[in-house]
């Protein structure tokens, strides 16, 4: 209940420096809280949302081809993240290939496979096993998956002709019909 007395001279000199120190301390605390809040918000966002413009990227396929925004312009692009060690990916691999062969003559649909954190040998083995003919390439530096904020494999993102994300599937497709049902509306007139 008693306050520790301080002499008048000390009191006045105290007033000057703590003011400045106090401001700095408060600014630092609030800055930290704001940054952490920002971080949490961004984390809560999850993967890229439907309707947003997709991040651009260039995929270097296992054959050495470069597939970038120019090759993807004006086409419906199905971007599938997979890995050779991922069992659920195998469930949809055959269906994806079949649907690709169905759309391929059309020229306005492009299927791209991105091998996520995979080894080249194992990836090529997987491609061979399912006889995959659409372009596949490694996710070098995991830049593409980080841009899309993926959380695992398999994940599929379908991008419409204007470069906006139209459809997201965060698990394996269960049938060819499901894939076609997602692509057909985007083909347009």
């Amino acid at each position: 209940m008693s306050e520790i007395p301080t002499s008048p001279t000390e009191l006045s000199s105290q007033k000057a420096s703590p003011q400045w120190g106090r401001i700095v301390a408060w600014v630092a605390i609030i800055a930290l809280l704001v940054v952490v809040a920002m971080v949490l918000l961004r984390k809560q966002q999850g993967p890229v949302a439907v309707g947003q413009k997709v991040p651009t990227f260039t995929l270097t396929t296992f054959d050495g081809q470069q597939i970038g925004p120019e090759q993807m312009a004006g086409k419906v692009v199905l971007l599938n993240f997979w890995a050779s060690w991922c069992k659920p990916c195998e469930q949809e691999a055959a269906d994806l290939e079949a649907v690709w062969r169905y759309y391929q003559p059309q020229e306005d649909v492009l299927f791209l496979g991105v091998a996520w954190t995979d080894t080249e040998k194992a990836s090529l083995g997987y491609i061979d096993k399912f006889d995959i003919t659409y372009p596949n390439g490694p996710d070098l530096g995991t830049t593409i998956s980080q841009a899309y904020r993926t959380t695992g494999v398999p994940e599929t993102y379908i991008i419409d002709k204007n470069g906006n994300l139209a459809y997201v599937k965060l698990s394996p497709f269960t049938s060819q019909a499901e894939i076609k049902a997602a692509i057909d509306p985007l083909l347009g007139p």
Partner: protein
Amino acid sequence: MALKRYLFAIVLALLLGFLVADAASAQQPTPSDDQVNAIAKQLYCPVCENIPLDVCPTTACAQWRELIRQKLTEGWNEQQIKDYFVQQYGARVIGTPPPSGINWLVYLVPPVAILAGVYILYRAFRSWKRPLAEVDIQPTSLEPPAETDTAQDEYIRRMEEEVRKR
């Protein structure tokens, strides 16, 4: 269909390549598990968080360890293998962020903060310190356990504080 033939050719070439390399490496010992582990210890699983590559039990990690073994067989050295992993899987495979761009902050902030602390402490000391001559408590050095003296001093000081409080 051309693509398929092309892929077949690649795979065949790779297989042949391995055969050749294998023949060549028959003269060198296969990189031992210890050699693989020595490098894998310094790398981190790109999928799971914060798990070193040598102890990660997943299939993916097993493949990566085999990849290290393969690169060692081809004669790559440790730095080359680490760089390859960073190029393939991103910066998160190594234990400390590569010093570039914003990552410099990792290495700068703690020393700066500690130095700031040292400075604050120094300033505080300066404002608190009275020269030794002004203080009249000088422990006589010959007393063995300084504790008994300081213990009594403690009690006295505590008494004084209690008295001061009331």
